[in-house]
């Protein structure tokens, strides 16, 4: 009985397991982006929270998001930004009023990939299952 309780206590202490369908995310950028080291998740969050606005060469960062109803945005929001959608929406509205533009939205994985390929300074995210063609992978989010 004690062993059973210990096992149960151990299992309860484990971090929550992500759903089976959750896949790794790739943080991708336009090939023009030059970085000395991979981005940390804190830096990715700083970009989307509009606190980090320029790449090391001084060019403007253009963060791109998926539509609010997509699973991949939900995963990115929870794992990288660690916020809920309502708070983020309020925050980005406040930032917009103060002259900082919120992330753009692309409503499909191909649209996100095409935008990042095309726009200098753009940064976004795709599923690791999608081939990251003609973009630079800045980080992998497990």
């Amino acid at each position, binding site marked *: 009985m004690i062993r059973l309780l210990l096992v149960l206590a151990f299992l309860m202490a484990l971090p929550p397991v992500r759903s089976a369908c959750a896949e790794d995310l790739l943080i991708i950028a336009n090939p023009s982006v030059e970085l000395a080291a991979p981005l940390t998740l*804190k*830096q990715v969050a*700083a970009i989307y*929270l509009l*606190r*980090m*606005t*320029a790449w090391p060469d*001084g*060019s*403007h960062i*253009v963060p791109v998001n998926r539509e609010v109803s997509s699973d991949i945005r939900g995963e990115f929001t929870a794992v990288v930004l660690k*916020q809920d*959608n*309502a*708070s*983020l*929406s*309020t*925050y980005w*509205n*406040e930032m*917009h*009023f*103060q*002259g*900082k*533009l*919120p992330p*753009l*939205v*692309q409503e499909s994985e191909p649209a996100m990939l095409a*935008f990042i390929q*095309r*726009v*200098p*300074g*753009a940064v976004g995210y795709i599923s690791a299952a999608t081939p990251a063609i003609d973009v630079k992978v800045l980080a992998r989010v497990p």
Partner: protein
Amino acid sequence: MLLSGLICGSARAEDGYQLGHGYDVGPFNFAGYSNVTASLPDQGGDAVVLDDLSLFVTGHVAKLFNPFVEAELTRLDIVQTGEAGRGHGDGALVLERLYNDSELTDGLTLRLGKMLSPVGEWNQIHAAPLVLTTVRPAVTYRNFSEYLTGASLLYSDPESKIPDLQVYWQPDREFSERPRSITFDEYRSVAGVHVSFPVALLDQIGFSFQKSRDTQGVGQALFGVDFQYTIQKLTLRGEWTYSDLSGRAPGQVRQSEWGGYLATSYAFDDTWSAYSWYEEFSNRTAASDARDLLLGVAYKPHPAIVLKLEYLQNIGGPPVNPTGLFASWSVLF
């Protein structure tokens, strides 16, 4: 880099319009907000007013060239019974902000032009769809210069390890002064600092100091504290300011002015919330303090649309805001 800015802007412009996100044309984003209010005070006339129709343009052209301009039509009566209140009537066209941001280093920005004073959070996000209530607590716009024309240095740590900081200086009068009918005091020199300690995404505690001289020669030194703190669905907000006055203007009966409000809001879900605030305000021209209590509900069918209904009760002192029922419909576009 200028070319890069123009290319990025063009790419933004390819995306369709989304309510609340503005519309992109090249490197410029055109956005705005509207606010229609209905006032049914216990004493005086009822009114439906276009309180604000604001347009703001944000430009991200190059590291040193990021212009911003905001102009608005304010206080335009749509329906009015009885005598119009202060500032109401035919409306006024106002230049709210006109400045350029130059990003000096990552996190450090030089701002030149006409901007909002960083005294408290409310003044900096005062657009109706963004603030808690239709009726604004007096402490969020009285007792200090809401605008300044001059230079400001802003520091925002990308990793939020150290507090955000803004220092500012206005050497002379406000550029394109707002009409006297919608302002309380006019300042000819302003300098100050604001420090904000981020606690969470929307939560913070801020400290303000502002030294100013108004057009009547009264000098004032203001100290202020503001905060927001969220515990699950409950959010607490507040602001307190105290000004020490030197010199005396006609009608002034005190050598200080102070006030503070404490607000609570509870989010039932993403669309419905209830809110309240209590305020005490000690006006420099009144012998006793005004005390107001407000209760209301808000409905947010879309992140950019808010409807509010609230009742304000003056519970002591000469009213800063009238007792009555107020409602608003505001849209960020």
